[in-house]
């Protein structure tokens, strides 16, 4: 893992608002109108974010590296 920033996105069409991401990473995700969105789009790599990414039932959370490429930190 590099020390660079991750950028976070939530696909609000896929999100079912079950709040799993907010429960495991309350500093990174919030529910508005029953859907999740990242609190800040750029974050330092964090274990809670990885867990939210992995636990989201709809796999609606995308993490990108600084170059904009999608990454899967669980691999």
């Amino acid at each position, binding site marked *: 893992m590099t020390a660079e920033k991750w950028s976070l996105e939530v696909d609000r069409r896929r999100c079912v608002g079950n709040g799993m991401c907010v*429960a495991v990473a309350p500093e990174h995700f919030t529910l508005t109108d029953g859907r999740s969105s990242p609190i800040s789009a750029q974050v330092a790599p964090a274990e809670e974010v990885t867990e939210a990414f992995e636990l989201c039932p709809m*796999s609606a959370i995308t993490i990108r590296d600084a170059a904009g490429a999608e990454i899967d930190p669980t691999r």
Partner: protein
Amino acid sequence: MTDTTAQFPFPPTSPEKAHEQMRRIREDRPMTQVQYAFGGKVWAIHRHAAVKQMLEDRRFVRKPFATGAMEVPYPVQFPDFLKTTMQFADPPEHTRLRRLVAKAFTMRRVELLREKTRRFAEDLLDAMERKGPPADLVRDYTLQVPILVLSELLGVPAADRDKFTAWSQVMLATNGLSEQELAEHGAALYTYLVELIAARRAEPADDLLSALATAREKDDSLTDEEILPIAMLLLVAGFDNTANFATQGVLALLRNPDQLRVFLADIDGVAPTLADEVLRHGGFALGNDVEGSAGLVPFVATEDVEIDGQLVRAGECVMADISTANHDENAFADPERFDVTRSPNPHLTLSHGLHHCLGASLARMEMQVIIGSVFRRFPGLALAGEESYATDFLTAGMSSLPVTW
């Protein structure tokens, strides 16, 4: 209620009349307070937006049902073991329980199971073909695939699958077993799972039971008493429903030849929207009578909450009447139409919010494979008799569907 012709619940009636009745109910009021044989009164919410609002509002909880402080208002009683599971838990306990298994059910993980699921389906279709028509599609096919997939996921060894399948069917009313046989099968399943968990704890494999057996929380591993209800919940929630909706999908297509033609023209392309349309509307597309009855598992209001102009008082129960909400013209264009290409399709059959079905991606994938594979193999699939229904269980599913090809 101001419109006296808009009663809820209402008895079985034709799909056309049910649509009309549901439309009147939604126009008349957002919810109806209903009295059930068990647990008493509950507000059944009928409008799509109001149902979603309730499911997103954490002031509605389930803990009072889990502790036994209140009985769940419902036409049937819920088994006690369910009340120790995530289904009856609120955060943070709900998060803790769901987290233990959630990784196995994400969309990405489920996609990895699609090929295996297809192979299970093909093997069963091979067997049906060898035996020749007619066949009971439920017994020989739609019920078997979800059980095999769940065995795969949990980590039941291939050699034990037949035993496991037989025991697991105690969860269903579709097997015609006696009380005593049910009890014996239930006990055998329980013992079997305890042994399998012990084996996996000693020698973990890449499956869900191993993950549970080796999961650590605050340096404690989970006990059998914690793992067993989770496994049982997955069995109860996991295959009866899936088998039933997959069967409903097959029958709905056979009864709607125009939609079957659309599907056959592009099976893989249409399967995803078909599966969701069956979840939304399958019960109405069979041509059989439908009724206005119970919805999803209720919640209790922890304080006074107003929804869509109706005050729900602290301590009162609410329930999502998804059948009526799934036909709300404010959420669906031409809600009375069975449209296998419908998109978007924000139906609530897998719920929404905190308790949104853990197996949603799995159920969708299985329905797509089950319905897709049988029509690819037998494009001329036809009914060879009337279907029958189980009436005496939580999920009153189809118990047999005679088909020929």
